[in-house]
């Protein structure tokens, strides 16, 4: 058996005799392509082409197609091509290959890039409107579910709520404490380092206290929760949607918003203020440690300065924002989860969208709250 495929071309007058030999299989595809290209010009010039296949030792679809392509090329423009010497066990394959690639649809014309860009822009504009609609629908559905629970308190899914609280609240404490502790320490270190130059080191405590309680504590925790729990919500609901679990719930007369989404969002709304509080304390503690070891300020002085610098108002401003941020994270995460379509790729895309969107909205919301509190003088 030949190990290399060959293609012998013997011209006779304006006729051409092609004799493929050896294994015409996918394993030798590079050789096959070169061979068929090398006889291309000869084939185009000949009036009649005979393809003698008696020398072919092995044939698969790929080899058969390359031969079929040659014979089609030879048969084009009113010339003739003949296939001879086809072994019995190859004839079925050759017949099969003769049927294919007959009606190749014309490839779609390459679209104008500017039009394409405009098209995308228009689509995302309309998409943004749809996003707002989806957000409001989810808010409304949640509100209806809350009313339902208020009218019949026993319909609240308590087990689910407690489980979600455990998952997104209790289990999140270690990582949130660690990160806010580090953030508090870093802010304090920067404060001491820069304020020292003009002798205002003691104001570091004011900065740490106000920054952490008003803004950073809740913001960092909200972003962490959006990344940690929001993504989990989206992925969970998304895979439930993919496996038709949500449809199954609906057909049993249960409202998915009531059963799945309300406990999740409620758990977030309850847990986020608590986590924000714990996070703020951890940050203040981190600041205190830095004050002692880096700023030469003992714990007593640190606490006394803190006492002077901050008031309950600062704490209230921070913690009041937490439930609203939780609501935004929960609604975005759940509605993105429900928008997952059939494929694994869509699950990944929706989860990314959920995290990006909820972090963005949390920061926008924080800005709006800053304006609001400034204008009411808090």
């Amino acid at each position: 058996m030949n190990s290399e495929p060959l293609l012998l071309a013997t011209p006779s007058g304006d006729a051409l005799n092609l004799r493929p030999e050896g294994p015409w299989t996918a394993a030798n595809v590079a050789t096959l392509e070169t061979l068929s290209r090398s006889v291309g010009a000869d084939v185009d010039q000949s009036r009649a082409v005979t393809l003698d296949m008696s020398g072919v030792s092995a044939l698969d679809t790929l080899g058969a197609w390359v031969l079929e392509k040659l014979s089609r090329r030879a048969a084009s423009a009113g010339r003739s091509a003949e296939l001879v010497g086809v072994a019995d066990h190859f004839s079925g394959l050759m017949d099969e290959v003769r049927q294919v690639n007959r009606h190749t649809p014309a490839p779609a014309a390459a679209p104008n890039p500017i039009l394409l860009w405009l098209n995308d822009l228009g689509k995302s504009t309309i998409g943004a409107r749809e996003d707002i609609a989806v957000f409001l629908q989810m808010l409304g559905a949640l509100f209806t579910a809350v009313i339902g629970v208020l009218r019949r308190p026993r319909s609240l899914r308590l087990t689910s709520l407690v489980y979600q609280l455990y998952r997104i609240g209790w289990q999140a404490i270690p990582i949130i404490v660690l990160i806010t502790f580090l953030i508090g320490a870093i802010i304090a270190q920067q404060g001491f380092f820069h304020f020292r130059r003009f002798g205002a080191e003691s104001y570091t405590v004011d900065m740490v206290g106000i920054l952490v309680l008003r803004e950073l504590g809740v913001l960092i925790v909200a972003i962490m929760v959006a990344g940690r729990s929001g993504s989990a919500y989206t992925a969970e609901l998304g895979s439930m949607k993919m496996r038709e679990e949500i449809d199954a719930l609906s057909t049993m007369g249960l409202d998915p918003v009531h059963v799945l989404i309300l406990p999740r969002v409620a758990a977030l709304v309850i847990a986020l203020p608590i986590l924000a509080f714990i996070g703020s304390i951890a940050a203040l503690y981190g600041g205190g440690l830095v004050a002692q070891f880096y700023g030469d300020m003992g714990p007593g002085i640190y606490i006394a300065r803190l006492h002077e610098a901050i008031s309950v108002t600062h704490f209230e401003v921070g913690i009041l924002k937490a439930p609203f941020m939780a609501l935004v994270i929960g609604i975005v995460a759940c509605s993105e989860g429900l928008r997952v379509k059939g494929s694994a790729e869509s699950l990944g895309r929706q989860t990314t969208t959920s995290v990006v969107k909820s972090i963005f909205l949390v920061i926008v919301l924080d800005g709006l709250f800053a304006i609001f509190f400034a204008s009411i003088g808090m």
Partner: protein
Amino acid sequence: MEGTQEEFAIRVRDLVVGFGRQTVLDHLSLDVRRGEILGLVGASGGGKSVLMRTIIGLIPRQGGTIEVMGQPIGGRTLGAATTWGILFQQGALFSSLTVRQNVQFPLRENLVLSQELMDEIAIAKLEMVGLRPQDADKYPAELSGGMTKRVALARALALDPPILFLDEPTSGLDPIAAGDFDALIRTLQKTLGLTVFMVTHDLASLTTVCDRVAALADGKIVAIGPMRELLQSEHPWVRAYFHGKRSQMLQHQMR
């Protein structure tokens, strides 16, 4: 073709596979002849899929030998795509690739060839399994169940492997689509000279396309032979399988 070729495509000897303390396949032996369509039946959870996945190397075995095309299979096999094509039960199409890219994937990974030829081969395969070229740019999520199976079959056949493994190819298809699929497998098996190993519960496909049927019970092959012989088998499980109410009805209609 050549006289030197061996008679058996797959030889399994004394295969033992288990998970934890549970033994699923217990000293199982099975021969699949070259160029035949072998149907494998067995109880749900009885180890049919385990046997198939062990042969293709997805599940480690605890004992025994497996030879495929005369080559012993040990642990991971390289270049497996040229030895066999596998049609998974759910199709297992790559959801981020189009139908055309799915079919081209084995070609792209295993061979060096021009994009033009790759496109033509992909369309050729799709047409051979009865799909239209227009379907080539769809994504797997847009396909119906029957189409998914056909695309998966086209992908399994992309490299013209000598052996084709089918895991419940007709499950979830309506009888017409299942019948078409059976006929398709039969045609392709004839044209391409394939050896087909088919796990199935579909009595109709067992009767119409399988050359031989093997029955797996208690971790062993308890009966093997043409459908006619299996119907005569005295093994209690095989009797229960083929002479239950559902099976009886089907067989009466076929007579």
